[in-house]
């Protein structure tokens, strides 16, 4: 079973040289720590920076330089700043090659719910609806089940949707799933996790091939 860093590490293997990548808040942010050797990617943050670098060294924080999570950041050589319309032009125009997002629920046709729980305070969707509606390649980083042990990998989402038919891949603490043809296709098991565990934790339609390899978590 993977921890959050393990999920991020597995997702990082999906990066390809030359990708522009938008990482959501939470587990997705951790992906930046596991970029494979020999791969150059550039991070976009939708509040208006391309070429986002690591957090600043203490004392060097610039209140005018933050990411979409409102955290102080730095800019790498070759960075660019821009306004919010330009930022979402990049996103809607499919210039960002990979978006990694968290989710509360994902359905077998690729719907995603990650912004609103009825009866609870609604904070808003921020840029999530633009991202999921636009990205060519969306990977969801999430836990397979909720705290009550109920599956979040569903036939249909029960929560209000963020986007429809958009998620291509899900990486959880248990598995890597590909979404196509109205089903989750089990691609990989997490280390030490059995196919049975995954089947038990998955409420949506799951296609299980004869052989399901264990993830190879490269350094």
């Amino acid at each position, binding site marked *: 079973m993977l921890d959050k860093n393990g999920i991020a590490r597995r997702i990082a293997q999906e990066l390809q040289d030359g990708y522009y990548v938008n990482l959501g808040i939470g587990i997705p942010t951790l992906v930046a720590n596991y970029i494979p050797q020999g791969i150059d990617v550039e991070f976009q*943050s*939708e*509040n*208006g*920076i391309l070429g986002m670098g*690591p*957090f*600043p*060294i*203490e*004392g*060097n*924080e*610039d*209140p*005018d*330089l*933050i*990411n979409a*999570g*409102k*955290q*102080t*950041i730095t*800019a790498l050589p070759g960075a660019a*700043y*821009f*306004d*919010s*319309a330009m*930022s*979402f032009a990049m*996103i*809607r125009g499919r210039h960002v090659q990979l978006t990694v997002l968290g989710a509360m629920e994902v359905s077998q046709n690729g*719907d995603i719910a990650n912004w609103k729980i009825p009866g609870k*305070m*609604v*904070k*808003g*969707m*921020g*840029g*999530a*609806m*633009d991202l999921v*509606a*636009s990205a060519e390649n969306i990977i969801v980083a999430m836990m397979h089940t909720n705290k009550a042990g109920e599956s979040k990998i569903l036939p249909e989402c029960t929560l*209000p*949707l*963020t*986007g*429809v*038919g958009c998620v291509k891949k899900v990486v959880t603490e248990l598995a890597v799933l590909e979404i196509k043809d109205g089903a989750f296709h089990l691609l990989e098991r997490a280390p030490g996790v059995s196919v049975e565990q995954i089947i038990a934790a998955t409420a949506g339609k799951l296609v299980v091939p004869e052989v399901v390899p264990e993830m190879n978590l490269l350094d």
Partner: protein
Amino acid sequence: MALNKVVANAEEACRGIQSGMTLMVGGFGLCGIPENSIAQLVKMGVINLTCISNNAGVDDFGLGLLLQKKQIRKMISSYVGENEEFERQMLSGELEVDLIPQGSLAERCRAGGAGIPAFFTPAGYGTEVGEGKEVRIFDGKPHILESALTADFAIVKAWKGDTAGNLIYKATARNFNPLMAMAGKTTIAEVEELVPNGQLDPNQIHTPGIFVQRIFQGKSYEKRIEQRTVRKA
């Protein structure tokens, strides 16, 4: 020959803002917000405002200051977390909230300033944001029709400005400011440094002065950091 948009201070800049008006307020979180003008709005005590702003500040800073005084009737935003008073007013029904995807919010402000009354976007299709909106398929993909936003006053914050109203923003403090500057019937710009015409490179202007009706040099910027994150040296 360039025009002179300079006013003395926030008080003069905000003259004419009245209760019930729609205001656009620049900034993302607490980054790039017009601190002086917000303080002036609190002082003026105008109420029943509709505020178009990506966020609603925190309890004791940014638009949170107006929320505390119950000056805002409606917020049009993409994300309104980090604000307890906001939550209380929203749940009690005192405050109306219209949530819009961030990219659509940005594009709708730009459209309002650019004379584009409506445009199609994929964002929000199939969600409650798309409910009641026209749907059309382009290139096999459903899109919804979104309309332009404008405001009686747009209030923006820039790093540098000149007397003709040309503005340059700094880093990610740019965010919604240039778009809202375009969409205000009257646009107020407060800047950290106001310089005479000719001192800004015309090649490097982010907001051309044509969009700005009033400009003043702000003071005592706090520039509060919402999420201070650092790494070890």
